[in-house]
């Protein structure tokens, strides 16, 4: 705990340095502050890892400040694991930011960046470490607040404004749900301490679960509540997107796991609910990602997908657990948590490298990129590793967690209820679809961004980014590979023998095959490589216009999933009179409906707006009416006081 405190102190010190120096635009201060953050993150990583391995909970409580107001912290294995996840990502983001902040923006606004980022990271860590729900709520709000300001960083842009409003409202909504859940728990148990509470009635148990599920679900970006995620992730600076997508939404997962596992009494239908929500999020997330051509928004939709996968694991855990299948339950939970770590790593990696690309090209539209693999080879390779991991390809880490989930699914037949089995089989097939679509999506993303010819002029001026912007992601890429290949060993080390293949042997055999193939090909062929123009059926030299576009690439899949996208076609016609003058002209317009926005968010917003207008209109009158209001109220009060009370 002492070292943790030192880490926290370093973070705060780093924030302070920048806050004190707000007036001057001084890059040395920012660098120094970031180095402090890096040091703090290193402490957190080592301490988190140590606590997770030792399995000895750390605890600390402050004295009570006011009625009900007390802070206490406790770091058990679960919390330590999440601290590890947060601090690993934070570490590489901090390294990445050393140059990114200097490169991406200008002015003294940058001085606010480091302190806010530190507060953001610290509040996430503290949320995880909190031992009472009140403190959790506080840090939850701090997470929201700091990330909100960071999202608003480029406030001049129209889209940022929209994203900011959306994000703020959604985070407030999540806080409200959490508040409801925590208040219910408090009122049932009489304390804010997070502990198993056998006194809960069935009704409270269920209600608390629903509230917490919604609250954490909004922050995690589960499907009906996901809309803020693509907006906020795409308009914030890339290192912040990495933090938000990599760890912030995991903090919500932590909350859910913590309460479901340690506080509430899970029921079968919770598992089914979480499973279905997870499956839908995963599937729709990836389907929406396929149609995105904004690189960061695409990645954001993939976050929704991966949160879905994590939830699938969690849902399976509850389902298996309620049938007493503890081995399977544990496998699902391990898969879910492992995927949490993996997603944090590869998604941050992707966001950071995408940030480099956006920084160099000045656009987020992948249709304008292309050919970057030649100008930014290292960034491209790092992105490729991230893409392979997120597509769940062996031997990278994403594969391992998805493999574990598949295996858990395959053993669904141990469940006695046929209905549940059929449900699980359906979810399984959708899950498989998700994972394959993700691969398709990343073939598109990598292919269109990095391969072939540049699609616009700005892209041609791109250069490889500075070292620190490579080291940060490289660290994560290294983990992607390492966690994949040595997954079996890591689990054994933690004392769990998962029923899964040892990828070390697979990698070894791949290595052998690679050596043999290279030797054989070298021996057989004449090592002559000639460069020539791409063949284009005899057409003149193909230029970038003849390349396959991102839209073209995903078109077949979009066609398959037409019912989900709800394309809205507006076709109007021109009618010509006999002199050739138009007397009715029209347009043809196809746009993909944003179904949740148009069917859920906007109607609700409009309803509130119309009530607001009415309430406002009622107050936008003259004195007579105001007195009339008072008059009526007084009469009502007299009647109530006389007759009712």
């Amino acid at each position, binding site marked *: 705990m002492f070292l943790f405190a030192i880490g926290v102190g370093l973070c705060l010190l780093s924030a302070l340095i920048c806050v004190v120096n707000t007036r001057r635009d001084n890059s040395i201060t920012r660098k120094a502050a970031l180095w402090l953050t890096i040091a703090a993150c290193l402490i957190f990583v080592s301490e988190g890892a140590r606590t997770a391995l030792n399995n000895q909970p750390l605890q600390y409580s402050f004295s009570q400040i006011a009625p009900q107001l007390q802070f206490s912290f406790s770091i058990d294995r679960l919390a330590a694991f999440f601290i590890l996840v947060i601090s690993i990502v934070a570490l590489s983001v901090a390294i990445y930011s050393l140059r990114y902040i200097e490169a991406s923006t200008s002015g003294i606004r940058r001085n606010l960046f480091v302190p806010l980022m530190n507060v953001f990271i610290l509040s996430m860590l503290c949320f995880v470490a909190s031992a009472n729900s009140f403190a959790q709520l506080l840090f939850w709000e701090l997470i929201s607040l700091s990330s909100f300001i960071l999202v608003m960083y480029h406030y001049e842009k129209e889209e940022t404004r929209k994203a900011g409003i959306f994000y703020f409202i959604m985070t407030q909504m999540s806080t409200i749900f959490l508040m409801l859940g925590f208040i219910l728990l408090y009122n049932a148990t009489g304390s804010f301490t997070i502990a198993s509470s056998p006194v809960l009635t069935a009704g409270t148990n269920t209600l608390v679960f629903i509230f917490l599920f919604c609250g954490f679900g909004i922050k995690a970006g589960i499907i009906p509540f996901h809309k803020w995620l693509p907006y906020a992730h795409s308009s914030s600076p890339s290192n912040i997107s990495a933090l938000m997508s990599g760890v912030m939404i995991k903090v919500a997962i932590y909350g859910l796991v913590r309460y479901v596992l340690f506080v509430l009494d899970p029921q079968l239908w919770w598992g089914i609910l979480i499973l279905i929500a997870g499956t839908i999020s995963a599937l729709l997330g990836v389907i929406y990602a396929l149609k995105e051509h904004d690189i960061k928004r695409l990645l954001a939709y993939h976050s929704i997908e991966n949160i879905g996968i994590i939830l699938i694991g969690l849902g399976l855990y509850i389902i298996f657990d309620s049938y007493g299948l503890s081995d399977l339950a544990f496998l699902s939970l391990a898969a879910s948590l492992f995927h949490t770590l993996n997603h944090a790593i590869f998604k941050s990696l992707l966001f950071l490298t995408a940030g480099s690309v956006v920084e160099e090209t000045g656009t987020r539209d992948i249709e304008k990129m292309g050919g970057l693999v030649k100008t930014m080879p290292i960034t491209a390779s790092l992105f490729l590793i991230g893409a392979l991991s997120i597509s769940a390809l062996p031997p990278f880490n994403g594969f391992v967690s998805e493999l574990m989930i598949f295996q858990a699914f395959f053993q669904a037949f141990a469940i006695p209820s046929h209905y549940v089995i059929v449900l699980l089989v359906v979810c399984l097939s959708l899950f498989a679809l998700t994972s394959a679509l993700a691969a398709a999506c990343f073939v598109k993303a990598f292919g269109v961004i990095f391969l072939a010819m540049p699609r616009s002029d700005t892209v041609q001026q791109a250069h490889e980014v500075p070292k620190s912007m490579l080291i940060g992601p490289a660290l994560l890429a290294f983990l992607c590979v390492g966690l994949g290949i040595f997954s079996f060993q890591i689990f054994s080390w933690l004392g769990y023998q998962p029923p899964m293949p040892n990828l070390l042997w697979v990698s070894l055999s791949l290595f052998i095959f690679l050596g043999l193939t290279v030797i054989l090909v070298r021996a057989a062929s004449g090592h002559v490589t000639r460069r020539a123009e791409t063949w284009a059926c005899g057409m003149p030299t193909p230029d970038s216009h003849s390349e396959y576009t991102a839209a073209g690439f995903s078109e077949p899949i979009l066609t398959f999933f037409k019912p989900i996208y709800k394309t809205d076609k507006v076709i109007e016609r021109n009618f010509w009179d006999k002199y050739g003058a138009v007397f009715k002209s029209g347009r043809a317009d196809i746009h993909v409906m944003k179904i949740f926005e148009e069917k859920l968010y906007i109607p609700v917003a409009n309803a509130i707006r119309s009530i607001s207008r009415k309430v406002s209109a009622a107050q936008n009158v003259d004195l007579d009416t105001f007195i009339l209001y008072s*008059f009526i109220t*007084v009469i009502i009060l*007299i*009647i109530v*006081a006389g007759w009712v009370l």
Partner: protein
Amino acid sequence: MMNPISIILIKVLFVFILGTAALIIMQKSLRSLFSIYAIQSLLMAFVSLVLFKETGSFVLLALAVLTVVTKVIIIPYMLNRVRKDSGIHHDAEFRYLTPVSAIIIGMALIFVIYSSFLRVFQLSQDNLFFLGSVIGVSLAMLGMLVIFSRKKIVTKAVGYLMMENGVLLFGVFIAELPFIIELFIIVDLVIFILLAAVLSMGIDSTEEDLTRKLNNLTKWFKQ
């Protein structure tokens, strides 16, 4: 314990006070309006006097004198000044309620207040106190009714004065109520009237024509 004649007298006065209230609700001529208000205040002073005779509390006598001085003489005088200065002599506009419906609502109001109070004051010690409170609250409510149903600020001021009368009527039945309070209420009232008069004509009355300003005021009132 009270002289039955006094009780009857007070009841008669109550009836008259309610009558003046009804007249204030309906009256369109400002001049008559102010006169009716003066009469109502006079009736209030009579109530105080009757009670003074019964209880012998000099507070009530002082109150009666004060009422006569301020409400029967000074305030109507001031109101008439305002009326003359502004050149407005009639307030024929009604909002929300026509005079007839206002009277009907007023009657219903009195009944509602009566029945509510009846339930609360079940074991009341003093029948007259109960009646006084009902009439007082009703008068206050009727004053409010005047405020929101009439257009001109002066009329509204009269409505407010009527409310004040209602409250005082209620107050006189509790003899021990410290005199200083009553005094303060009346002082407050005078300040209020001054303020309302000044406000309704604007602060800088030298610059512009008063009539136009007052007409404008009603227009401005829309927002």
